[in-house]
């Protein structure tokens, strides 16, 4: 890995710094200067995008091979005898992530300006957004696990701030707290893994001229001895760091915060909880993939770490798609869909490697952002309505949104030739070929079927059929806290500042997949540092699976059409699926009651601990303090008593004695000369007697 003197490599740090500086500048801007704040944020993102483009082109120009990884490390502070270093890294993985984050981020920033224009806290919104963007970009370029963790936490903070943006709504602030706490639980594992890694290898830098923790010497050292349960050290560390990724990427069982995070404004949901932040967990696993996949060469099975990642991902994929079937809030459907797709990405990483998982991450970012922005457009057009049962027939009011949303929906379902088809197929192909088990493949396949089903359901509810929204269900015109409400009564198309990003994203949703087809796997080769070859040879191996997945998609869409097309006339009619299987439907709509289980177990346990601590504090600590204070008070009283009766009395007594003796002695002085003379006479006698007696021999 040669130390490059190229300008972009040396100045890669500008990419996260510019949005952070913009955020800092916006934080001191007055609330009414919205245009200025938005422009500053958008400009910083645009410059970051141009710089990312430059970085991408630079990596492209470097060709192939290991020289693709270029890192710059600088000394930060001294810890004992060693220097703690931090640095940034430019390699194909970094380049594609940078490009995706800055591009999607830029589009969403522009969209937000239209969406949040009427909100009185618009400036604060852009401040947090810019800060988030900076933090995400920091995670992407970090070459040190510590630096990555720091930016990771900043992302968590901004996510909290943005979910709870409308903090006056108690449900929003509760959701923000939940997000922060649940991801924190994952971060605990992350931190332990990080500490263990530092202890094991002495460095937290990924690549450092052969001395980094992901490089060959460190990895072989970690494989030498086994630790708990016969796992190697690298697997143990990998699993701990996966805890952090599981929290951030909403894997089961730490997924509970993602649906509630929809309380934030829609651009937040699009940027953070669909495209970028939740993908950061996947990115983290991709980053430390050498660690996760390090195994003794003689072993042929994948490492335990990767197996765990795959199983968790498979469970999450199936779970998310099952629950999404029974949701009625437009954003919640998309949220569970995100959970499910993140599961797919984890499967991809586990069975197929970095390129498989990352390909789906990139395509998912585009079409999920598109879907969320489209949902935002729908909500904005319906004056804040989020329940799909109260929408319908919107295709005649919002044609542009419909077109863009359809493109996203088809991409998500994996309809042939759309972006999601290629990426999801890669995953299913690798899962099918997994040496350990085929169950993840079947779970993924069922998930794909369900994805097509629920997205079709959503489309029918929102865009097709009759408009069955009762008039009195409009959001009140003066409710500034809910989304998109501005007092209009009929649904209408959104302004072009919102629809243009939609259309741009739609184009990508359609065409992005072509960079990773099996015939020309440019994306995968780019990430692995190889030359991409255009050939039809893979078709022979892959055509069967492509056919199966197409059938699954069509099957799912067919079910959806059969159950929902034209069936829903009124808002308060029960859902057709609910009519078919009411008990299953209710379990699904409550997300398998996981939230309830957590509330009864962990939350209640925590409450018990809280009460215990309160009792402890009140009776034990407080008791000790009270005892000490009573002792001190008692000592003070005793002191007072002694002072008053002993010291004072003694002193007073002494003074009294002196006074008394003085008074007594002063009786001698009665002003009469003769009595003085008498006294002198007596003294003379006494003296004489003394002298004579003393002088007698």
């Amino acid at each position, binding site marked *: 890995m040669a130390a490059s003197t190229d300008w972009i490599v040396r100045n890669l740090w500008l990419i996260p710094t510019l949005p952070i500086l913009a955020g800092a500048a916006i934080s001191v801007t007055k609330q009414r200067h919205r245009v200025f704040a938005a422009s500053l944020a958008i400009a910083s993102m645009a410059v970051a995008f141009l710089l990312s483009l430059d970085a991408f082109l630079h990596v492209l120009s470097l060709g192939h091979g290991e020289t693709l990884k270029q890192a710059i490390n600088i000394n930060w502070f001294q810890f004992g005898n060693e220097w703690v270093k931090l640095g940034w890294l430019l390699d194909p993985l970094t380049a594609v992530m940078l490009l995706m984050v800055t591009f999607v981020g830029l589009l969403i920033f522009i969209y937000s300006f239209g969406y949040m224009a009427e909100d009185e806290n618009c400036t604060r919104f852009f401040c947090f957004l810019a800060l988030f963007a900076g933090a995400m970009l920091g995670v992407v370029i970090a070459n040190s696990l510590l630096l990555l963790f720091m930016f990771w936490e900043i992302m968590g903070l901004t996510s909290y701030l943005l979910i709870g943006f409308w903090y006056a709504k108690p449900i929003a602030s509760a959701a923000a707290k939940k997000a922060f706490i649940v991801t924190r639980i994952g971060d605990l594992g992350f931190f332990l893994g990080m500490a263990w890694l530092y202890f094991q290898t002495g460095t937290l830098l990924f690549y450092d001229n052969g001395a980094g923790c992901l490089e060959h010497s460190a990895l072989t050292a970690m494989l030498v001895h086994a630790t708990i349960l016969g796992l190697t050290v690298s697997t143990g560390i990998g699993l701990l760091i996966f805890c952090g990724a599981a929290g951030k990427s909403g894997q089961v069982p730490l997924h509970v915060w993602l649906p509630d995070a929809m309380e934030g404004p829609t651009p937040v949901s699009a940027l953070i909880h669909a495209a970028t932040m939740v993908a950061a967990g996947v990115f983290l696993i991709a980053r430390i993939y050498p660690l996760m996949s390090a195994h003794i060469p003689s072993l042929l099975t994948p490492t335990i770490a990767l197996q765990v990642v795959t199983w968790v991902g498979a469970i999450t994929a199936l779970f998310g798609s099952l629950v999404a079937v029974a949701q009625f809030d437009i954003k919640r459907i998309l949220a569970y869909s995100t959970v499910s797709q993140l599961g797919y990405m984890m499967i991809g990483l586990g069975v197929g490697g970095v390129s498989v998982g990352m390909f789906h991450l990139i395509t998912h970012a585009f079409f999920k952002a598109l879907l969320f922005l489209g949902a935002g457009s729908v909500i904005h057009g319906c004056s804040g309505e989020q329940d799909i049962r109260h929408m319908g027939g919107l295709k005649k009011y919002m044609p542009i949104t419909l077109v863009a949303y359809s493109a996203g929906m088809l991409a998500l379902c994996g309809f042939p030739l759309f972006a999601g088809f290629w990426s999801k197929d890669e995953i299913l192909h690798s899962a099918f070929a997994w040496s350990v088990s085929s169950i993840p493949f079947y779970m993924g396949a069922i998930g794909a079927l369900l994805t097509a089903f629920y997205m079709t359901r959503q489309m029918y509810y929102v865009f097709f059929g009759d408009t069955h929204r009762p008039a009195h269900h409009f959001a009140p015109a003066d409710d500034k806290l809910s989304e998109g409400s501005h007092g209009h009564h009929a649904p209408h198309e959104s302004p072009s500042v919102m629809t243009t990003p939609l259309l741009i994203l739609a184009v990508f949703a359609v065409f992005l997949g072509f960079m990773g087809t099996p015939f020309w796997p440019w994306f995968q080769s780019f990430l692995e540092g190889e030359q991409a070859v255009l050939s039809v040879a893979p078709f022979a191996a892959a055509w069967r699976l492509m056919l199966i997945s197409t059938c699954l998609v069509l099957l799912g869409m067919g079910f959806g059409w059969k159950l929902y097309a034209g069936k829903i006339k009124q808002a308060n009619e029960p859902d057709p699926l609910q009519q078919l299987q009411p008990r299953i439907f209710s379990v699904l709509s409550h997300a398998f009651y996981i939230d309830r289980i957590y509330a009864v177990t962990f939350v209640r346990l925590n409450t018990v601990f809280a009460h215990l601590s309160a009792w402890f504090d009140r009776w034990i600590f407080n008791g000790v303090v009270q005892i000490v204070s009573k002792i001190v008070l008692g000592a003070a009283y005793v002191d007072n008593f002694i002072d008053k009766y002993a010291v004072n009395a003694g002193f007073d007594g002494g003074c009294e004695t002196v006074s008394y003796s003085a008074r007594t002695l002063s009786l001698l002085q009665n*002003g*009469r*000369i003769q009595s003085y003379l008498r006294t002198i006479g007596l003294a003379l006698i006494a003296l004489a007697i003394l002298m004579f007696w003393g002088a007698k021999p």
Partner: protein
Amino acid sequence: MSPLNGYLLLSALLFSIGLAGALTRRNAILVLIGIELMLNAANLNFIAFWRYGPNPAALTGIMFTIFSITIAAAEAAVGLGIILAVYRHTRSTDLDQMSSMKG
């Protein structure tokens, strides 16, 4: 009893009489007179010792006595002057009543 002892005894007696008077009389002038008597007794003592002492040629006793008489006279003059001044203020020579220096 030798002559000296006799004179000394007499002098002691005179002294005591003067002391008794000084301590018991009410009139201030008589107290002063008592003091004068005490001085006189001392003078007698001096002369007696001069006469029966070791070195009469030195005239020490006589000199002392002369000076003593002088001083006694001066003191009597001043003392009586004081008593007169006090009498002018308080219209009395009663010593028992002159206790304003009390305390």
